[in-house]
């Protein structure tokens, strides 16, 4: 979550990324910054309680603030509340600026690229263009309604430089889906081959890749074989993660102990 949080804050141009929410001072400063620049729920004079980040009354002011915003996060968990607050700010910021945002290579068309930004827009427009969207697509990307996911998806699509113009009515989930597929393809073609040999396999969908995985022993039936492979792959992934942690620990230790030496004058070639 911390990664997404910092990603969102960077998008909002918060000056002190990354933020550590465990630090009460950082958390409070972030809240007043969000209110001052992005949310603007209160009039300036009413923001005093939040602005005084050193005051013992700050927590109470923050609780009231969340209540005024109809924050769905149960009171007490400040961290989760701030995460929600950031997502909320992204949403507001997006609504404010949607008109100015354009897909990089479709700049000339000047379409508002606000797909997925607001929940209502996304869900209504997805049904309004049935030709482009299958039910499976809707199911697969149902959490596009969540503004945080939407922001992350947009970021990904932009990073992959996929030419994309959002739906004409201000947001089309099917378009997002196809843009994401394009982004995935681009990643596959351009980033994949740079991986180490053995890591990257360019060809085929998951089922085909799975068929090529050697199981190493015999089981009856394709379904059972696939299931066995998937279980083994999951286990191996965990094992690999553990091994990598061990390797990191060894490397950390070497910082202190390693001092390899050679002295070629000692060398003697035998007969």
């Amino acid at each position, binding site marked *: 979550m911390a990664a997404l949080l910092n990603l969102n804050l960077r998008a909002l141009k918060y000056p002190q990324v990354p933020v550590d929410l465990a630090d009460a001072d950082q958390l409070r400063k972030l809240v007043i910054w969000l209110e001052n620049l992005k949310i603007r729920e209160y009039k300036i004079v009413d923001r005093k309680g939040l602005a005084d980040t050193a005051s013992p009354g700050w927590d109470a002011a923050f609780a009231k603030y969340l209540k005024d915003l109809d924050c769905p996060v149960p009171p007490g968990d400040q961290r989760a509340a701030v995460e929600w607050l950031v997502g909320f700010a992204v949403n507001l910021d997006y609504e404010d600026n949607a008109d100015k945002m354009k897909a990089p290579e479709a700049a000339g068309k000047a379409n508002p690229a606000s797909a997925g930004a607001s929940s209502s827009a996304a869900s209504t427009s997805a049904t309004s263009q049935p030709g482009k969207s299958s039910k499976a697509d809707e199911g697969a990307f149902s959490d596009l309604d969540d503004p945080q996911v939407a922001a992350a998806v947009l970021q990904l699509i932009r990073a992959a430089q996929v030419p994309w113009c959002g739906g004409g009515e201000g947001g089309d989930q099917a378009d997002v889906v196809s843009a994401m597929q394009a982004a995935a393809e681009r990643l596959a073609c351009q980033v994949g081959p740079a991986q180490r040999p*053995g890591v990257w396999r360019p060809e085929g969908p998951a089922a085909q890749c799975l068929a090529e995985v*050697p199981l*190493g*022993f015999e089981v009856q039936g394709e379904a059972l074989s696939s299931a066995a492979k998937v279980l083994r792959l999951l286990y191996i992934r965990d094992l690999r993660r553990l*091994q990598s942690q*061990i390797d990191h620990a060894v490397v950390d230790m070497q910082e202190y102990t390693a001092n390899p030496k050679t002295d070629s004058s000692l060398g*003697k070639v*035998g*007969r």
Partner: protein
Amino acid sequence: MPRSYAEEVAFIRQLGPVKYEVSPGFVPGMHVPGTFYVNDALKGLLFEELQQAVVRGDHGGFLPAVKQLANVAALPGIVKRSIALPDVHSGYGFAIGNVAAFDMDNPEAVVSPGGVGFDINCGVRLLRTNLTEAEVGPVREQLAQALFDHIPVGVGSQGIIPTTAKDMESALELGMDWSLREGYAWAEDKEHCEEYGRMLNADPRYVSSRAKKRGLPQMGTLGAGNHYAEVQVVDEVYDAVAARRMGIDTPGQVVVMIHSGSRGLGHQVATDALVAMERAMARDGIITNDRQLACARINSEEGQAYLKAMSCAANYAWVNRSSMTFLARQAFAKIFKSTPDDLDMHVVYDVSHNIAKVEQHCVDGQHRRLLVHRKGSTRAFPPHHPLIPADYQLIGQPVLVGGTMGTSSYVLTGTEQGFTETFGSTCHGAGRARSRNNSRNKLDYQDVLDNLKAKGIAIRVASPKLVMEEAPESYKDVSEVVDTCHQAGISKKAVKLRPIAVIKG
């Protein structure tokens, strides 16, 4: 009354296209049958050897490998069968290429230094690079020279890594963990090494000071005999998935193979143990068919002392190969003006082909703890075995089979069938076809060197006169050996490698 050749052969039965069984009775006191794997091209040598021994009678000469295999089957506590692999040839006590497992829970079961060999933890390590033959070809000679300068070779050679007696003690106890601590190895090297490069039961107190003295100056040296460092290229890929997993799937890709062991230290450990065990045999009333099969009960003082010292020698060999890996990386970095990291010089795997280890196997449907002796045989564990690295869980343990000087080498992978049939073991190399003396008499070393040059192989040798002992002509054809194992299903061919530069003792 000695038996005729026909009578001897009557004990040998063909079980499959490449599999033969030697029935009990072939030599006195066999507890289990013997099994050997040979194809038609290789079986001639084994049977000829037996025939000559029959003609010669009991007078002098070495025991044929088949007899040695059967004598091992008569040792106390052996389980299932005594196994010979296609590269089998006569050795000290045990044939080289023999696998035998002894039941840890049988108080009579023995450990024998002859079943491990004098060069304890002799083994092969493979490093990959991201260089191609086209890039390396023009600087082949310089590269061979740089390796020769960094890795001293030959009898009595001394290494360029300064080592104190204290370092030595730690190295014997810690194995590759010592190399890691001192910065000679990468963290990833350890995970791609059999036993993670360290036998945990090693105890340097059981290694004689004489052995330590011999080992001290030799750290980071290759040694003589059949040991070598070769720059090789990927010649042929048989199993694309396995090759890709190991990162050696591009034909023409350059790799480095290091074949070395525990030098004088291991030899001394074995010699010390043989002396102690002769006493133990007399005390415990252990009788063997061959004096060379000196052994002691696993749980006896002598047995435990040997296992602890052997583990130290094994650790020494891993440290030695790690040191040479460090030196080879330096040599490459120097010639290609890059860093070992950028050259992707990772250890693909490191196998041991002279060692005894406690392993868990299933015998007759029962779970057993066995002391598996592998002499001139490589462990080849199947996919998903818990003792192989995460990276190779799907393809099985890589098995590195060094050819002889100037011939091909192979990378194989372990199989489930091998695990059940041969305690997860396969061949280790070409295996001798001629004895050392025999080859010295019949071959001219200049011809051997010229032959290598004609093939475009850069070669650096410390003692050219010893070269003919190791000439390809003295060995069996490694391809036949590997094919036999593949056909028998005890290991699977993955990649074939071809040398372009050889460094030798």
